[in-house]
């Protein structure tokens, strides 16, 4: 993947002292990291080590037990999902069939879930079907979604096209921070390449991207910086991914090696918990 070096500007995401006691699944402990606007931060780890929980907390789908999260300077504590989106978060969920789409609804309807109540899609309390349709046709063309019509139910699309619908929705909201979980899982090569280009383009346009993936090749190709998660803790932080090999990252994923917590939290500015 050809890409220019990142030109990080402001801060897109600050996470400080994040803990989460999961009723089921993986709990999180003492997570500290930043994502700058204009960089892609990769999150590596063997699946089930807390990536899902972290992503869903950042998206507002779960509430953390303690810690502070700031998105583009906004404290997200106490915000609901819509509030998180309003603060500038976009989220491509890892399991698109579970919550990424309403499979039996049209592409057009799937593309507006976060904005159906706002102009130009709604005016004076009424939806404008023509605006919803235009919006969909625009994105279908922009993201090269292969479908005969915007009224086709999402279920009828291939994995790659379905994922394009989700990515189109999330990126077209122009998020300050995009959380992209397993974006290319079950997606054909063409669509995969397309996603990569879009993620880099979003980065270059000034978005922060947190790329969660089980695919180390993908992470090393795209990430400007890399974090590794194990058992609900961050165990490594690489601020320079050039020259990093899959084997080396793998050692951290398996807990054979780990970074000093001081190194992982180095240089992070203080953020007071709300």
């Amino acid at each position, binding site marked *: 993947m050809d890409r220019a070096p990142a030109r990080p500007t402001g801060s897109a995401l600050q996470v400080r002292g994040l803990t989460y006691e999961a009723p089921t699944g993986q709990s999180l402990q003492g997570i500290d990291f930043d994502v700058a606007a204009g960089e892609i931060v990769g999150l590596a780890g063997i699946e089930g080590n807390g990536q899902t929980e972290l992503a869903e907390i950042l*998206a507002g*789908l779960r509430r953390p037990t303690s810690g502070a999260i700031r998105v583009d300077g906004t404290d997200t504590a106490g915000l*609901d*999902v*819509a509030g*998180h*989106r309003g603060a500038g978060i976009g*989220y491509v*969920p890892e399991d698109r069939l*579970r*919550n*990424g*789409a*309403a*499979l*039996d*609804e049209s592409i057009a*309807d799937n593309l*507006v*879930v*976060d904005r*159906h*109540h706002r102009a130009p899609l*709604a005016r004076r*309390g*009424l*939806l404008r*079907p023509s605006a919803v349709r235009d919006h969909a046709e625009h994105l279908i063309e922009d993201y090269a979604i292969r*479908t*005969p*019509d915007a009224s*086709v139910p999402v279920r009828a699309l291939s994995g790659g096209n379905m994922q394009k619908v989700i990515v189109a929705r999330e990126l077209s909201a122009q998020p300050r921070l995009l959380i992209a979980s397993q974006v290319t899982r079950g997606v054909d090569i063409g669509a995969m390449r397309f996603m990569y280009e879009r993620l880099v383009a979003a980065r270059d346009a000034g978005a922060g991207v947190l790329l969660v993936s089980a695919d180390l090749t993908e992470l090393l190709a795209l990430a400007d910086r890399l974090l590794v998660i194990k058992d609900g803790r961050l165990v490594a932080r690489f601020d320079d991914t050039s020259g990093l090999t899959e084997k080396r990252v793998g050692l951290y994923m398996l807990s054979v090696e780990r970074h000093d917590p001081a190194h992982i939290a180095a240089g992070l500015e203080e953020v007071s918990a709300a």
Partner: protein
Amino acid sequence: MTGTLIETEDRREYKATRRRDLAVDLSMALATILAALAIGFVVMLVTGNDPVEAYGAMLTGPLERSFRVGRWLEDATTLTLLGLSVAIPFRARQISLGAESQLYAGALAAAAVAIFLPLPPVVAVVVPLVASAVAGAGMGLIPGSMKARLGANEIVATLMLNAIVVRVYDYLVNGPLKEPGSSAVHSKSIQQDSALTPLRDWFGIPLGRANVGLLLMVLTAVALWLLITRTPLGYRIRMTGSNPEFAEYGGIRVPRVIEWSFVIGGAVAGLAGAHLVQGVYGRLEPGLAGSLAFEGIVVALLARNNPLVVVVAGLFYSYLRAGGDIMEQQTDVGTEIVVVIQAVIVLLVTAQALPDLLKRRLARKQVAAR
């Protein structure tokens, strides 16, 4: 260049598929009704009745005299309102079986105003209607909140609420609200000004107890169709029903949407109660709704919860009910056969795999034909 060619080809094929699916849906609906009637035919035959004579009475009876038409339309008004009332929560995938409690609450509220509160004309019609909608909505809010906020099973909650409200209603009609000095059990009559105008006043022919409630019902259906297809709340209801986890992920407050779906449904069921009080009986009667509340569910299902189709399904279903009564008067066949036919329709409609199977087979045939 080739890209656009493929796309137009795709689009044409898609449109053909859509047309074919619509045709399959329509013919399946027709086939379902015919199959149910055929089963009814066999049942009558086996039980020693004359199905031809029975169906003759049932299918032509309701149109033979104008007051029978009125009876049909009056029944259809209540039934369609009840169908609409469950169609909305069903759209949010909430199995609300509470139309009965909402109807009785609405009937009580409408009657309380229409009997005891002197109001100027027009207002005297509107206020009881509003009161019934509010009461019905309140009765919907209870199971709605229990489901949305606590995750309590809405089927059980609505059924329990039905059982409670029906008994309280029964007590009130037999006790505090019973007309003093009357030997029969019913309330005092509503004030003249509160009555929904009978249709015979407009058309000048006897139309039984059919009244402007019919118009109100059609307006409600259109309003609900607009709500579902043209408003943000309707969108949220559809997404919540289709995939609640997706709705939540998209920033929709799912519990609130669920509550709204119950409240709207409850208000409409409340109006059905007002229709019975202000338009049909002119007072509270014991067992006002009969089995209509449950049959409203059937109507909504037949219409796949599309408000406009609910009107068609309601008219059709009521026609069968009205026909069944005439059939029983004119032949030896019990009107219960209509319930059996209705049940068969429900079972056939819910057997989703049948039309899908057919569609897939047709699609395969078309591919093979190329």
